């Protein structure tokens, strides 16, 4: 009796997961198959490493975005935070501050900017969409303060190694993505913190009545988003050997696209880190595959947009069937 009960629960969970991930995994595989037929160099270890490296900055920002969207909020300021973090790091290194303190303060700057987003949203009860549209502009302006808009070169070997060197034949950047994926995934799916995020995103009132400190949770999640963006900023500046004032411009849209492609519901309450990772990979594969096929950039934009539309439509349709 007990066994049959567990079995039916397992089956129900399985169908649930299949519905959630089946589509996007399939989409990723289909894309890979198409591109490998179109170009024989696509299907190679070197190219996949390349894709992962290219997608790292977006994927990490998208992990942060997944938390925010899961809560039913949005963070449009992450592109600007990416640029601020790069600039903070580059300036400190220029002034001769050591690698480790610079890294810590750079990540902390992301946390502070996220904290500000969270406080404005949770305490002043402003919609996060408006708050982060505003801070997107403010933070982008801050980037130019130290240099009046000029880029800052980065010479520090440790900093540039992050984006360029390998460890055990795997680029460090991929190790970082993997580590952050695991941390975020475990935090989201295995801890009470993650559960509280799901519950609050699913029904804020019910969460409040169940003793969840919704405001604190919201602030913490905007801080996570800020820190993840700062990590992206470090990676990007490391790969570019410089901090640019227009770095990370419109990356928030790719991060949102990755999360939504991965099945994170914009109304809150559902989503996974695995989904987001696959979503980011789909974007990476599309960019990479089309570039290899010499598709002009403007066509790439059109295709990317259409793929997102189709994916979201399929997702909405399967959810409606379920209901």
């Amino acid at each position, binding site marked *: 009796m007990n066994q049959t009960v567990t079995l039916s*629960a397992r089956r129900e969970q399985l169908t*649930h997961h299949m519905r959630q991930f089946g589509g996007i995994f399939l989409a990723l595989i289909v894309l890979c198959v198409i591109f490998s037929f179109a170009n024989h160099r696509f299907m190679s270890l070197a190219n996949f490493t390349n894709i992962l490296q290219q997608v790292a900055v977006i994927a990490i920002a998208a992990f942060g975005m997944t938390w925010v969207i899961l809560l039913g909020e949005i963070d449009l300021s992450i592109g600007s935070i990416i640029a601020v973090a790069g600039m903070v790091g580059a300036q400190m290194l220029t002034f001769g501050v050591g690698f480790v303190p610079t890294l810590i303060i750079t990540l902390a700057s992301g946390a502070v900017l996220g904290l500000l987003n969270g406080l404005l949203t949770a305490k002043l009860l402003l919609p996060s969409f408006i708050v982060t549209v505003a801070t997107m502009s403010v933070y982008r302006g801050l980037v130019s303060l130290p240099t009046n808009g000029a880029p800052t070169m980065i010479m520090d070997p440790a900093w540039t190694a992050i984006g360029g060197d390998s460890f055990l034949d795997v680029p460090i950047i991929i190790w970082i993505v993997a580590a952050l994926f695991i941390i975020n995934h475990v935090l989201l799916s295995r*801890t*009470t913190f993650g*559960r509280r995020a799901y519950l609050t995103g699913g*029904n804020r009132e019910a969460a409040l009545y169940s*003793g*969840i*400190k919704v405001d604190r949770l919201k602030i913490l999640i905007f801080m996570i988003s800020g820190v993840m963006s700062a990590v992206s900023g470090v990676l990007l500046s490391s790969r570019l050997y410089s901090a640019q004032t227009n770095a990370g411009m419109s990356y928030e849209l790719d991060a949102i696209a990755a999360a939504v492609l991965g099945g994170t519901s914009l109304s809150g*309450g559902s989503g996974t880190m695995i989904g987001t990772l696959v979503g980011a990979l789909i974007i990476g594969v599309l960019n990479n595959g089309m570039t290899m096929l010499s598709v002009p950039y403007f066509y790439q934009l059109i295709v990317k947009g259409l793929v997102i539309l189709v994916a979201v439509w399929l997702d909405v349709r399967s959810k409606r069937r379920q209901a």
Partner: protein
Amino acid sequence: MTDLDSDVVLSLRGVRKTFGPVVALKHMDLTVRRGRVHTLLGENGAGKSTLMKILAGVYTPTEGKMVLGGAPYAPVDPRDASDRGLAIVFQELSLCNNLTVAENILATREPSRAGFINDRRLVEQAEALVRELGLPIKVRMRVGALSIAQRQLVEIAKGLSHDADIVILDEPTSSLSDSEAEILFRIIERLKAAGKAIIYISHRMEEIMRLSDDITVIRDGEYVKTLDRNETTIEELIALMVGRRMDELYPARIGAPPDPASAPVLSVSSLTRAGEFEDISFDLRRGEILGFFGLIGSGRSEVMNAIFGMRRATGTVQLDGKPVSIRSASQAIAHGIGFVTENRKEEGLVLSHAVRPNISMAALASVSGRAGFLDTGRERREAQAEVKRLAIRTNSIETITGTLSGGNQQKIVLAKWLATKPRVLILDEPTRGVDVGAKFEIYRIIRQLAAEGTAIIMVSSELPEVLGLSDRVVILSEGRIGKIAPRSDLTPERVMRFATGHF
């Protein structure tokens, strides 16, 4: 009772509806006559909603014959149904909160020229309708500013805003207080006198016996029997509906009531919040069921929210004789207070999530280990145990909560609070919108909890429920305590006098 009967306005024969392999309605017969109130009675899931949706043109029946006003009836959509003279007042609120009462009532039928709405005529028309129905509502108010009960009245006005021969009311009183229900009953009487046929759905037996002329019982998607109100009893109807005998709706108390001289678990004194409630003082003992009765707007839910830390109020709250300051739900939970809120969909459940996370929602600390890691094995076992204890009918603990019936959803809210092992459990309208079978089971659970020593506050606007379960009753009237008395000292009439302030 033949179809030739000239009073018959609507008749259904052998109506059946299937969704793939799922049979929603097995076999339905119905004969509705003008000038009569025809009640549909059945547990949640018996097929009433499916039947309503068929009549409303939302679903097309798989089989069967429907005749309306002598002609075959096969509505293609709700608009078609409305054109054929059906008016339907749904239980789920379908109003736009940002629009005014008038705009809602006349939605899609606004008086207009060339697409521009004539505001003055809109207000006039709505006002005329509201006045005719005798509703205490200002049509220029935004619906969002109205109470749930007032919104329900607006919903009714909307349903009746165009001429209809048949008016279908789906649980119209589920969120109305007795005084507002009276307004509705007067409207129904007037519709009856005007020769309309009324199809009425409700779970409240007293109300059904009072209003109905004919009563059709449905069970498991199947027509059971149509009875004349004067030739049946509540007991017979319940027995037909649940398919088993239910001698007593309110289970008897297990053991003796708590000693009035014993120390209270919860003691509230002079709790006050300006404009909502004033000078609320009462004691609650271990194993006691304290009923809280009051009309809508008497401040019942507001008091409970204040005790639970969701609203600021002055005054003192003591637990086991020690004053406590509860300023948030998490503090209330830490002090061993549980709160089954009034609206399970808004404040109770995450409908898009499975049963398991809903049950553990308020007790996450008890299913997690060090560093906040969830112990999913333990969570699963505890959810499983609650499902079993409360006889929640669900496929598994991974079933999405929103797909379950109202009664089972309500039991999940109960399970969620029982998982916190509360010493004091506040129940705000614990049986709203659940069928008789689930009601009985919830009463049994409440009794059992009290017997195990839980101190229970039960807020309810259903008088029979309050009198059927409580050891003592607190009667609220306009934000103040009208009376606190042992159950044995109270009659329904006395309670109503204190609640309305006319004694």
